[in-house]
């Protein structure tokens, strides 16, 4: 049936092609440029278990996981952004602004400091688990504190101020823990505050990959309910939405998506803000479209940002959070000044 299909059938194929191109660029360029021949030979040797030369090893152990991390982390942060914007009914909400990322960073750095003391371990999943707990605490704090006690709605001002306070609290906690930490990665405050994909390895990207794919699939089941929520909580309930359950699911998905990425890559802001905004400009606000589109465009954007962060000061690196902020802040200010969204 043609009449009501949202136009732009070509959009997803085009975006996917852009994603693939960005991914391959991200494979080739960096501190060292790796040629197509080397990419092919290292994959061939990897499959046949032959000895690798230096560039091939760099490609397989550093470049390839990092390029995949760019796609996955971008996708998870952007999808987290769509979910939170739908839940708060507000386009300026972003995991970095409402405390999810900083809470996750705090949880993760707490693990780096106390990991040897506590008895509980879940193998490779302990770090993401610690980040999830931190992210959940901070997100729920902001969600509850920013709600107006009489109307039950979160105003933007309350949301931003609460987010600011919670962010400041958790990031100073991260700063404090960084001084105590022995782990060289956790000791770098810039790692947590500005993020970098340089820590990507096969273990971390498998964990991020599993979480991202599972959360995206689950969130698509709730896209319709999130659409109904655009009309307000009362109207959503009248359309059969179980509001409490929806809130719990959406916050949980967001925390998982954002905290797991943050645990391995640090706080990367503004991806969850910029990507849904770009997509709304392209093809409207239907959450089914936004969720899938954000996974792709988030991957594109973060891969590009990572490429820039690798190339700008090569062979040194810029933290990726600086690049995303340079893109994100103007978009954020534009959104704040826009009258369309009734703040």
């Amino acid at each position, binding site marked *: 049936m043609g009449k*009501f299909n949202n136009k732009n059938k070509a959009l997803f194929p085009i975006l996917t092609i852009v994603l693939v191109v960005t991914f391959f660029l991200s494979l080739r360029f960096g501190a060292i440029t790796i040629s197509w021949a080397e990419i092919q030979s290292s994959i061939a040797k990897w499959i046949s278990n032959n000895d690798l030369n230096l560039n091939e090893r760099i490609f397989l152990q550093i470049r390839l996981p990092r390029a995949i991390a760019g796609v996955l982390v971008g996708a998870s942060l952007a999808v987290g952004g769509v979910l939170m914007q739908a839940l708060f009914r507000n386009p300026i909400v972003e995991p970095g602004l409402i405390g999810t990322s900083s809470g996750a960073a705090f949880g993760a750095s707490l693990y780096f400091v106390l990991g040897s003391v506590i008895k509980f371990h879940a193998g490779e999943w302990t770090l993401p688990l610690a980040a999830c707990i931190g992210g959940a605490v901070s997100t729920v704090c902001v969600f509850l504190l920013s709600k107006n006690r009489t109307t039950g709605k979160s105003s933007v001002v309350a949301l931003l101020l609460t987010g600011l306070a919670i962010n400041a609290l958790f990031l100073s906690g991260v700063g404090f823990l960084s001084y105590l930490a022995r782990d060289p990665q956790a000791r770098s405050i810039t790692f947590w505050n500005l993020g970098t994909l340089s820590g990507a390895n096969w273990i971390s990207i498998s964990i991020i990959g599993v979480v991202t794919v599972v959360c995206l699939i689950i969130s698509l089941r709730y896209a319709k309910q999130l659409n109904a*929520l*655009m*009309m*307000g909580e009362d*109207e959503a309930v009248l359309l059969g939405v179980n509001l409490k359950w929806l809130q719990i699911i959406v916050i949980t998905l967001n925390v998982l998506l954002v905290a797991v990425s943050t645990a391995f890559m640090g706080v990367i802001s503004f991806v969850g803000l910029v990507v849904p905004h770009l997509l*709304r400009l392209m093809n409207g606000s239907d959450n089914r479209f936004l969720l899938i589109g954000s996974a792709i465009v988030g991957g594109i954007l973060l891969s590009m940002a990572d490429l820039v962060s690798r190339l700008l000061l090569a062979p040194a690196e810029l933290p990726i959070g600086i690049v995303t902020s340079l893109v994100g802040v103007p978009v954020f200010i534009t959104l704040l000044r826009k009258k*369309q969204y009734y703040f």
Partner: protein
Amino acid sequence: MLKAENITVRIGNKVLLDNVDTQFQPGKLNLIIGPNGAGKSTLMKVLSRQMDDYEGVVTYQSVDSKAIPDKALARMRAVLSQNIDLAFPLKVWEVVMMGRYPHFSGAPRQLDEEACVAALKFFEVEDMAERNYLTLSGGERQRVHFARVLTQLWYPMPEQGRYLLLDEPLTFLDIHYQFQFMRKVIELLQQKDLVVVGVVHDLNLAARFGDVIHLIQDGRLVASGSKEEVLTEAHIEKAFRLKPIIYREKQGLRLFFE
């Protein structure tokens, strides 16, 4: 049939509804009238199950509304509320399609799209289908939402019945659209499984279009029945503290106030 049996609502010491007992027949236009603060909106919320903290029972075709699952209720009961803002820009047809959300999972089926098209046509808003909802005027939005709630109840459900609750549906409409709207509702009532209950403020509109009028005052149902029975000088003067002059003419009942 929709029934409210001995409904009492208390908030703290205040009694918002006091033992309201009435029923709403299908195929008739049921209108609730009453002064400000009488409890009309509270009654609508109890009927629609937006509020569940009450004494008494609301039944949809003899089934206690509290026993109906959320989704099943959303398939048979729609509420037109006032003044709905959208958090994000959506096209008009996307808003109207939300009415079908309780009916399909995944993507809309052909019959969902057909309901959408038909409801847009019925309320003469099909030209706006591709427009951004946020650019519409108050009256246009009201009509779009009416198309939406109608889409929700588009297909007959002879077993359970369909229930359309209208909470002050005329607020943003000019006189032309008020009349058009009421005529459309009456047209809908030819579908015999449809129960319509509406709150209106304009007593002349109630007199013109209502089949059964329910007068509420101070949380109590003062009168309920045909317009001749309910819209009397005594009832009106007591409820609204204004002395009416009522003309009974060929075209119907008319009220004037000094």
